[in-house]
């Protein structure tokens, strides 16, 4: 029987992951400007856009601005893509999470194209989004993202984007 190293205490693991996610998100001013937050369960992220009056695009309905919705989905896609890379590197030990600070963030993927499908008007409520990396190659990635408000099964918008991946490990 081989002896396995004692697993790290759960708080240590959680704190390391939460810190890495926080640094990734807090490094981007526009995410703060829109007020987007991320909720993490293991490696699964949910983006949250708390409702604010200045996200309105049609005051008559009222409805969320299509541009605010597009930006929310694009943020959710980019963070998911960066996070999935960061997660792999942290878990494999390639990356020391302690070295990930504001000055040493891994470079972000760049959006090549982004197609937003507006399914129904965004209500003046909080919105949520989850992204799925459908393909992540060395140079290109394809990400799909879904957004909803009150009901997870009633999407108000979805999007697909292609991204140019940053060069990896030097």
């Amino acid at each position, binding site marked *: 029987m081989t002896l396995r190293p004692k697993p790290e205490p759960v708080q240590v693991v959680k704190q390391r992951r939460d810190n890495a996610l926080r640094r990734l998100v807090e*490094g*981007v*001013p*526009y995410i*703060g*400007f*829109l007020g987007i937050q991320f909720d993490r369960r293991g490696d699964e992220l949910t983006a949250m856009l708390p409702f604010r*009056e*200045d*996200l*309105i*695009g*049609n*005051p*008559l309905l009222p*409805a*969320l*601005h*299509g*541009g*605010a919705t*597009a*930006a*929310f989905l*694009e*943020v959710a896609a*980019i963070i998911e893509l960066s996070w999935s890379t960061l997660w792999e590197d942290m878990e494999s030990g390639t990356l020391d999470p302690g070295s990930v600070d*504001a000055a040493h*963030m891994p*470079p*972000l993927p*760049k*959006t*090549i*194209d*982004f*197609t*937003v*499908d*507006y399914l129904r*008007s965004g209500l003046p409520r909080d919105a949520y989004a989850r992204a799925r990396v459908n393909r992540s190659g060395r140079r290109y990635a394809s990400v799909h993202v879904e957004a909803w408000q009150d009901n997870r099964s009633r999407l108000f918008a979805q999007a697909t984007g292609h991204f140019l991946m940053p060069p990896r490990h030097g």
Partner: protein
Amino acid sequence: MTDRLTQARQFIEAIPHSRALGMTFESLRDGVAVLSMPYDPRFVGDPATGVIHGGAVSALMDTASGAAVISHPAMPGVTATLDLRIDYMRPATPGQRIRARAECYHMTRSVAFVRVTATDEDESRPVASATGAFTVDRPAEGAKS
């Protein structure tokens, strides 16, 4: 400028999210809208380069597109985005104003089709372009103006 265009302009200028991003009109005529947005450190998407987030550029292009639709002479009412497909050709140069020129090039009874291009100060090399489909919403019965 006709009353219709004045109304369209006032409607767009009153949009809270467009105001939050500092968007202003440069011109508006039948079916063609030019809006611009200042560079602002709060809109940065990549802290390593200071480049504006694609989402802010999308918001500008979406607003310009909506303005082009409601300023179209055949437009009977209001509009909402059905679909917006954006290509990001290059990073916008940090510090420079971004301008979006949108044209509603075709309108049916139900759908308006728009093309839009975003540039910074170097107008010969677009930053992004997009095509969109927008709803054509007629005023409700009894609410006709």
